């Protein structure tokens, strides 16, 4: 049997650390990199008698995530306790959500730019929970120690149905999810720092089969590429295992990016019974239709809607659209410039090309100028000056630099520097005459049919007009004058 007789079945759990000022159930700050156990209080240390009070902003953020992923929202949601013992879990239970998560039954569609365009990955649930502390094993040779700064940090968990069938599809799903989440401003979505964590579970089955195979869960994945590589490895491993007569063991496996392999984290997976029950310390949370509307109104444009607008409505090439999708500041300038009346397809290359180049140059010499802070009206005006023939593209670039340096309007710079293109035939006559007089040989060549000889004459005109002459007009005037046509 060949690999093509098999298909992978993957579901993904993503944990997203919310960028709130304070923790999920107490007032301690959420901060990365503080000295161990300095961001703690009776609540997140689980001292006797301490009680959790839910962070209203975290709840709002979780509902934003759920809405952005097309979820239905439970009007009455609640927290539950997930009970297990571990030294990094101070209360002996994690406050999570069991059967009344904030969001359920959503979906994320893979973008038109993906090889899996149009695939709808169903989102089973979006719920809110608290992070654990961190065990540190190398600080003391005799024992492990625990840092509880992270304990109680709000986490949103996003769980898909097992709808993914390919490592590349998992990769595309995660990229689109990351883009969607980053638009919400609820998290820094940083995989390296662990503020976004992906835990795919994967099984394989023969094509056409409907029942699911035994799955493994893969951890230690701190980039989307690692996820893709780990999925490829794990799918191959499972297929080979089954084909050689073995069977997959349900277990958690760790990805090793050095070796490019997964390895079982524990010899045998313990059967957990988390004994979920409703958290009695926190009243059920009701969300009214009005509150939902308010949150919906803050969502802004989704990446999917923006992508459709750029590609389909405005007709941008996908490389430009893609830059704007991933760079909200550029996208904002683009939208504002278009709103000032500029032609979308003309603006895009200026922002993606010229402004980006200016940005890089300034970054190299450590200039503090924010090129994207250029007034959209100025940029629109600059493009209008190019469109009506006042400025050549080359001069327009010079004006752009000057606008960025001085903050003056393009019109002012054109006037100060006398850069307006000479676009009237009458105004060009003296320069045309001078060029013909100075180049009799070229004139002869042209009359003899050597069309290329006109270059020398055009160059002469451009020099005498300091580059301001409209090159097309110069060309046409010279031909009329020499050939009489």
């Amino acid at each position, binding site marked *: 049997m060949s690999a093509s007789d098999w298909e992978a079945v993957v579901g993904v759990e993503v944990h997203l650390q919310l960028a709130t000022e304070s923790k999920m159930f107490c007032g301690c700050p959420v901060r990365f990199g503080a000295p161990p156990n300095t961001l703690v209080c009776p609540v997140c240390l689980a001292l006797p008698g301490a009680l959790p009070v839910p962070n209203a902003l975290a709840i709002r953020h979780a509902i934003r995530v759920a809405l952005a992923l097309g979820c239905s929202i439970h009007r009455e949601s609640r927290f539950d306790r997930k009970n297990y*013992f571990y030294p990094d879990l101070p209360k002996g239970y994690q406050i999570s959500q069991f059967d009344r998560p904030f969001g359920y039954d959503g979906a994320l569609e893979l973008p038109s730019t993906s090889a899996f365009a149009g695939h709808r990955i169903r989102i089973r649930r979006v719920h809110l929970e608290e992070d654990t502390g961190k065990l540190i094993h190398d600080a003391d040779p005799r024992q492990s120690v625990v840092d509880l700064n992270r304990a109680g940090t709000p986490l949103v968990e996003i769980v898909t149905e097992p709808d993914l069938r390919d490592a590349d599809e998992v990769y595309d799903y995660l990229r689109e999810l990351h883009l969607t989440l980053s638009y919400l401003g609820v998290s820094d979505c940083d995989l390296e720092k662990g503020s976004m964590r992906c835990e795919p579970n994967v099984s394989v089955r023969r094509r056409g089969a409907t029942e699911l195979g035994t799955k493994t869960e893969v951890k230690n994945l701190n980039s989307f590429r690692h996820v893709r590589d780990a999925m490829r490895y794990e799918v191959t491993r499972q297929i080979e295992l089954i084909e050689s007569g073995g069977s997959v063991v349900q277990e958690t496996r760790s990805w090793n990016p050095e070796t490019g392999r997964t390895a079982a984290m524990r010899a045998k997976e313990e059967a957990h019974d988390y004994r979920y029950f409703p958290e009695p310390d926190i009243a059920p949370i009701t969300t009214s239709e009005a509150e939902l509307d308010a949150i919906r109104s803050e969502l802004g444009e989704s990446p999917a809607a923006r992508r459709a607008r750029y590609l389909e409505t405005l007709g941008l090439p996908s490389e430009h659209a893609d830059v704007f999708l991933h760079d909200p500041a550029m996208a904002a300038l683009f939208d504002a410039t278009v709103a000032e009346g500029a032609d979308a397809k003309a603006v895009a290359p200026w922002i993606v090309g010229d402004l980006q180049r200016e940005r890089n140059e300034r970054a190299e010499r450590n200039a503090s100028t924010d090129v994207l802070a250029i007034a959209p009206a100025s940029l629109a005006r600059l493009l209008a000056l190019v469109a009506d023939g006042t400025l050549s593209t080359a001069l327009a670039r010079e004006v752009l630099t000057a606008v960025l340096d001085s903050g003056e309007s393009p019109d002012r710079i054109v006037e100060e520097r006398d850069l307006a293109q000479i676009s009237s035939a009458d105004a060009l006559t003296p320069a045309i005459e001078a060029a013909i007089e100075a180049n009799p040989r070229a004139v002869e060549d042209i009359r003899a049919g050597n069309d290329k000889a006109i270059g020398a004459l055009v160059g002469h005109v451009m020099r005498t007009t300091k580059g301001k002459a409209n090159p097309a007009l110069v060309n046409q005037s010279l031909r009329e004058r020499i050939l009489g046509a």
Partner: protein
Amino acid sequence: MSSQRASTPDESVREISRAVRDGERSAESVTRAYLDRIDALDDRVGSFLTVDRDGAVEYARKLDRRREAGATLGPLAGVPVAVKDNLCTNGLRTTCASRLLESFVPPYDATVVSRLRDADAVVIGKTNLDEFAMGSSTENSGFQPTRNPWDLERVPGGSSGGSAAAVAAGFAPAALGSDTGGSIRQPAALCGVVGLKPTYGRVSRYGLVAFASSLDQVGPITYDVDDAALLFSVIAGPDPHDDTTAAPTATNGSESSPDADRSDLHGLRIGIPREYFPDSLPEDVSLPVRAAIDRLRGAGADVREVTLPHTNVAIATYYVLANSEASSNLARFDAVRYGRRIEHDSDSLAMMAKSRSAGLGPEVQRRIMLGTFALSAGYYDAYYGKALAVRDRLRADFESAFDDVDALVAPTSPLVAFPLGSKVSDPVSMYLCDILTASANLAGIPALSVPCRDAHPLPVGLQILGPRFSEERLFRIGRAHEELSAAPLPRSPIAMASAEGDAS
């Protein structure tokens, strides 16, 4: 003894605070007088686990200095209060009567404790309890039993037995307890003092070491109803640290003023729940309770029989829910961050298991196991899920009763104080002590226990239950009950003893 007149246990919270506010007596002299009584007599009773002699005197002196500097002191000015040892006190050991927390010193005050301090009360010490409030006799303490001041061979009830005994013995004019299934009311009844279990959510649980979060409430234990009402007014009210606290709404919080004729009950409908007077109820309990009900009727109350049909399943429901929550609430006592640790070489989970096995007493371990079982996969629906459904029925029982009557009156405990050791080997008979009290916790309603003054020789409590947020109505009925009693408020033999030790 101090130069000023020593406190006698006849003094009420109101009298002490008035005298201290007016400068007739110093907070220090009051505090020292009670400390002297504790020093002289508590070795017979065993009501305190920790007496904060230095801290209490120092705090009292501070109050005196503030008053001398012109400040008006608060409503509990200079009143020594004994606090159950499952309420966190900043800098003062809080053990929950558990060996595991033998040396735990909280870095913060429970909200009720800081409200006491804000009202200028003096926290005099921490009282004994059944370990983690699990029990009805205070014999499950990891440190010592507490004895009933009325008869030292009998239990004070529990789990707030230390607080009830301390008030009954005259070691403090007031105490705080906690009530999960009757743990304030039952010991108050057995010790002949007043105890209030407030409406769930009326008093903050922040800093109360949780036994069963959906049932626990903190409340006062005092000599009389007016003192209970005063302490309640100090500790009640919403707390931003407890998400389950709630304020009464305008419609359910109002009640006639206490200045009206205190014994006139015309217009008040009182229900007698049939199920709370089973044939098995002993006469030493039923006779004083029925006599009290007759007096209420005589004062104009419209007394009628009502039914609470799910009462017979309340105790089973209570123990499933309370133990389930307890199994989770007590998981934090893993000896990782605090608590007595038994080191173990193999791994941290083994260390936790060893520490918990060594530090937690047998009743606590039994309840953790029962609760863990009730929440387990495959058993949840049959136990925890079913108990939640029955809880709704019990609530509905009370709601429909309160459609017809304003309050219910019943005995607090089916038994008077029983001899020490008589029930320790039979947990189920101990659990049945809560049979008349646990329903109020399940329904979240307030209930007050007041002594029947004509009970003899051991105290009997009259329990008054009302709809959510009806505490003022309960106080009104409780005061009428006090006024209508011919006998004066009886005092325990220990309370009658002087600090010099003239009683044996």
